[in-house]
């Protein structure tokens, strides 16, 4: 049993860290935040050159064919860099969903261009109810046309096609399709722009059914937790550096236990989130029977932890932490967006409860 990274996994993580540090330093993040879409074609083409857009997809569609653990490591580094733009929506949302639900012919049409970096995309799930339960969705696409409104769709404005989760299937909609209106939602995370999409008899192509939907959501959720871990790690580092440097009463504030113990808790929360993210990725890769619970555990824990880590980090920075100039609020904003995406801690606690409390009789047997 070896719950550490292999040499090649370490290499991938390390090179991703260097890549993002070089191509997307925090000054670049801030520049993109202030643009309408947070999308930069030059950065995008460099990401594509790295092969990141095809990282976990099969080689027959132009992917690299790596596993879920590798995806999570890449997302961890993207999260650490606070990568803006449509990488998450294209690869983790659209790519993963198409890979899970589509027949080969549709994968050739939609997944291959994602792998090659030619297409950017996103997934539209939530409706006005803001429920992640597929049964709560109202929009249907059986007629080949979509009508209705999707909300909280990341990076829709720069997507070449949208993947729409409807009640009765998963559909692809071309960005230039008729009867579609995309409008920005003003939200906290300035690097991950959200949009509403209105469909009015918009032509849509069915790419698959919803049977594998939850499985795809689990993979995307685990990848999101990986990204959250990267954000927590960076928030921790920024805070510890500050606590070493900032002096009050003639001493570095990190010398005071009231500060130091908060840093220790940030470390505990970050490492525990990382353990859960890695385990979930491994369980998904191995198709372990507890994979779905493991994903919920990871998302539950990290959803609370990424907020708490942010709270502690900002508190330790004092007044400086409350300024726009300090980077912590950028991570804090991303943390909020990530906390709610695919369900917050309460949602996942209930999901865990359904699997372990409501089936307590089965559980007792297997223990």
């Amino acid at each position: 049993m070896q719950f550490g990274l292999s040499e090649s996994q370490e290499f991938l993580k390390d090179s991703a860290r260097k890549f993002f540090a070089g191509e997307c330093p925090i000054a670049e993040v801030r520049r993109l935040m202030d643009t309408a879409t947070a999308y930069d074609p030059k950065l995008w083409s460099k990401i594509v050159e790295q092969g990141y857009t095809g990282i976990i997809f099969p080689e027959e569609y132009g992917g690299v064919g790596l596993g879920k653990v590798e995806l999570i490591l890449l997302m961890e580094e993207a999260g650490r860099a606070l990568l803006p733009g449509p990488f998450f929506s294209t690869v983790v949302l659209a790519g993963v969903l198409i890979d899970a639900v589509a027949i080969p012919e549709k994968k050739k049409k939609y997944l291959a261009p994602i792998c090659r970096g030619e297409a950017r995309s996103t997934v539209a799930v939530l409706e006005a109810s803001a429920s992640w339960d597929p049964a709560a969705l109202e929009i249907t696409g059986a007629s080949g046309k979509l009508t209705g409104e999707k909300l909280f769709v990341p990076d829709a404005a720069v997507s070449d096609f949208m993947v729409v989760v409807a009640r009765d299937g998963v559909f692809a909609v071309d960005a230039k399709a008729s009867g579609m209106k995309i409008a920005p939602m003003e939200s906290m995370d300035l690097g991950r722009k959200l949009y509403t999409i209105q469909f009015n008899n918009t032509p849509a192509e069915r790419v698959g059914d919803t049977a594998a939907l939850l499985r795809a959501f689990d993979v995307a959720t685990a990848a999101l937790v990986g990204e959250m871990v990267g954000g927590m790690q960076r928030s921790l580092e920024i805070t510890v550096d500050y606590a070493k440097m900032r002096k009050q009463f003639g001493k570095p504030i990190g010398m005071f236990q009231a500060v130091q113990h908060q840093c220790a808790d940030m470390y505990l929360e970050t490492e525990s989130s990382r353990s859960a993210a890695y385990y979930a990725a491994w369980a998904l890769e191995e198709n372990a029977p507890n994979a779905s619970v493991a994903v919920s555990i990871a998302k539950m824990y990290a959803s609370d932890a990424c907020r708490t880590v942010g709270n502690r980090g900002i508190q330790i920075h004092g007044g400086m932490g409350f300024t726009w100039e300090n980077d912590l609020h950028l991570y804090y904003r991303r943390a909020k967006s990530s906390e709610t995406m695919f369900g917050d801690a309460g949602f996942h606690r209930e999901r865990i409860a359904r699997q372990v409390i409501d089936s307590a009789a089965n559980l007792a047997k297997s223990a």
Partner: protein
Amino acid sequence: MDLNLTTEERLFRDELRVWLEANSPKDWDQWREKPIEESFEYLRAWQRKLYEGGWAAVSWPKEYGGRSASLMQQAIFWEEMARVEAPPMVNSLGLGLIGPTIIAYGTQAQKERFVPKILSAEEIWCQGFSEPNAGSDLAALQTEARSSGDHYIVNGQKVWTSYGWVGDWCELVVRTDAEVAKHKGLTVLLVDMRSKGVEVRPLRQMTGESEFNELFFRDVRVPVENVLGKVNDGWNVAVSTLMHERGSYGARLHLLFKRSINRLIELSHTFQKNGHTAAQDAVTRQKLAQCYAEIEIMRWNQMRAFSRMSATGIPGPEGSIQKIFWSELNQRVQQIAQEMMGPYGQLLAGDSHAVDKGIWSYGYLRTRGNTIEAGTSEVQRNIIGHFVLGLPRSY
């Protein structure tokens, strides 16, 4: 990353399972509720059996009667022991902490004299570390050992000594030089508990039991050949002992906690809350799910730490997060038990209305000590702050 057992690990586990199946006592249930004074010889016999099977100290080198087991194998050992609900080993301090320290620091004569009898439980060991005025600040200890020819004369008091009442030998940390900085004047002595001037008193704790003792030393003579390691190098020897405290033993906690949460989940279907079962109560469900999740995360944290320790060879300060994590989690598990049981939660063993023979009221009180014993949460956070994060020492 591969969380499947290797062939070697599987063989180890299977061999152990077969052995435990054949040898673990089937009548432990009749003994476990009794005070340890009564079950002590029963438990000593159990350790003797493990020793004869070659399972008493799997982590020890083969030449000392162990199996030179890898850290993962050690973790498997504790998991399997917990899985069959095997009784504890009475010489746990000797096996887990003191034996490895003697193997690391002892002279050839000390190893030959002490190590085999630790394994067989023929001699029980206790630890004389904490003092009334030296808890977290262990190096401030005051028990003194004065050199007197071929002996040391020991005077002082120790506290929180597990197995003191039954101890044959004690790993005792004493001050041999009061003139130098506090860490530099310490020495570790191996003390015969039957020496003249040693007095052992029970220390009654908030649960009502006396798991621990107070030890009093009045002009106790300890021969110089019983110095462990070098004179005035006792801090390093003692720290080496404490590092073992955070070893693979924690691997058993996952199964113990899992058993608790599974039982609470079972009980949630019978206790009433807000007009329906606790299992149907939204708040209770959330809290049970939270504990269930954290118990899994505790295991994943441990597995990651074991993997890292396997790679580096030594238990690192990251072990501090395990201590904080399990001790605080254990308290939360007990808290949700209390919330679910309402007034029943307070009933003690012996009351006819007590749930599960009072284990939950006992657990509630006993887990209060978890964040204090084996290094308080505050000390663990200091260790993380200073040794892991590189913040300046705060004390």
